[in-house]
């Protein structure tokens, strides 16, 4: 079954026939985590890097922010039986407008915070498709852990 992960949202599953999908990642970051041994996986779509701009909002919805959402995803998967050493991390998004020149910098900052959180949790990034001015859709196929990026009518495997 297909499950859509909205903006500032997270979904996890242990069903092999599930597909998790998140649409139109711009400067947001998407992280797919998959443990082939435990057969669990999750996908998160974080909009903004740091929760300190609105702690109340982060308490209500930690998935809006990369610094609160990603640890929540990791912990949820651990609770479902995933193990740190088996987790495969794939990252997409963190795009930017043309010639942004640091005007908004949201994509870049999302990516930096994501890397920091993963590094703190000793999780390596296996593959990524980040930056540039394309919007991306990410699919995580639970049957195999295959992660597919769809952007501008073209599909590629991550």
């Amino acid at each position, binding site marked *: 079954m297909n499950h859509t992960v909205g*903006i500032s949202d997270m979904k996890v599953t242990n069903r092999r026939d599930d597909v998790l999908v998140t*649409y*139109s990642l711009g400067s947001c970051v998407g992280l797919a985590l998959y443990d082939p041994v435990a057969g669990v996986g999750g996908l998160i779509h974080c909009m903004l890097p740091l929760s300190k*701009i609105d702690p109340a909002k982060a308490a209500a919805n930690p998935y809006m922010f990369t610094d609160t959402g990603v640890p929540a995803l990791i912990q949820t998967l651990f609770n479902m039986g995933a193990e740190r050493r088996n987790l495969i991390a794939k990252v997409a998004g963190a795009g*930017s*407008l043309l010639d942004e020149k640091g005007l908004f910098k949201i*994509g870049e900052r999302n990516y930096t915070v994501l890397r920091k959180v993963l590094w703190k949790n000793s999780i390596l990034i296996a593959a990524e498709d980040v930056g540039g001015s394309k*919007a991306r859709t990410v699919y995580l196929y639970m049957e195999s852990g295959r992660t597919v990026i769809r*952007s*501008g009518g073209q599909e590629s495997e991550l």
Partner: protein
Amino acid sequence: MSRREEILAQVRTLPALPTGAGQLLALLQDPDVGISILIERIEYDPGLTSNLLRLANSAYFAGPRTIGSLREAIVRMGTKRILQLVITSVVAPMARRPVSGYDLPAGQLLTHSVAVAIAGEQIAEAVHVRPTDHLFTAGLLHDLGKIVLGTFVEVDVEPIRRLAFDEAMPFDMAEREVLGIDHAEVGAVLLGGWSLPADVVEAVRHHHDPEGLSGDKRTVDLVHTADQLILSSGLGGGSDGLNYRPSEKSVARLNLTPLLCETVISRTLDAVQSLSGVLDASGGN
């Protein structure tokens, strides 16, 4: 006939506003028209009346108390807000359809439009600028030209995408290069027949080129930066993606900082989700 002329001819064949809506917009902008006449005209359309009340009571527009009647809505919100709600209600069914050329699935253009309308107001609040009267309306209508231009973009999608993504040309510029016109100008031409305030039409025309507008740039600066922020965050984004160039000058005129941008985005997302629910529920109008 050039592509540009062909596209402009197509715009002219489109019906203007649904019958009655144009007259209602004109009445709402006429300071001499009394509340009773407005109520009479709006109540003539039960679908519009129930949409207006639903919007008036949505989390974004609502005050502390429930609004029970049209009269109460007009008195409490003022005719400017009511005008915005009427336009929202009229435009929603058009903007809800899928848009070819930009690969926008059903509902995405409406989400994007509402998000830019709200983000414009949120930016104004964040930088302590008084929102201009027609900011919400201009934000809501800024991309309506995509509905018309989309079918032409679809035909020439290869050269447009090549210029945009291989040569990093802003998407609106690639549209002009290949088709002779961009979605902003098409939108302005389309709206030209809707008896809207001139500054709405001009802000739509220049929403990717604020410097091109002479005179007061407050509305266009707010719509432009709101659009760039919402494009960037992917709310209702299409295959044109983030391939647009933000104006440093607009950002500087507004004194907008990266931190304020993030606050605006986080506030806008919640408001959009609450309003989109209302618009989805309001059906075909």
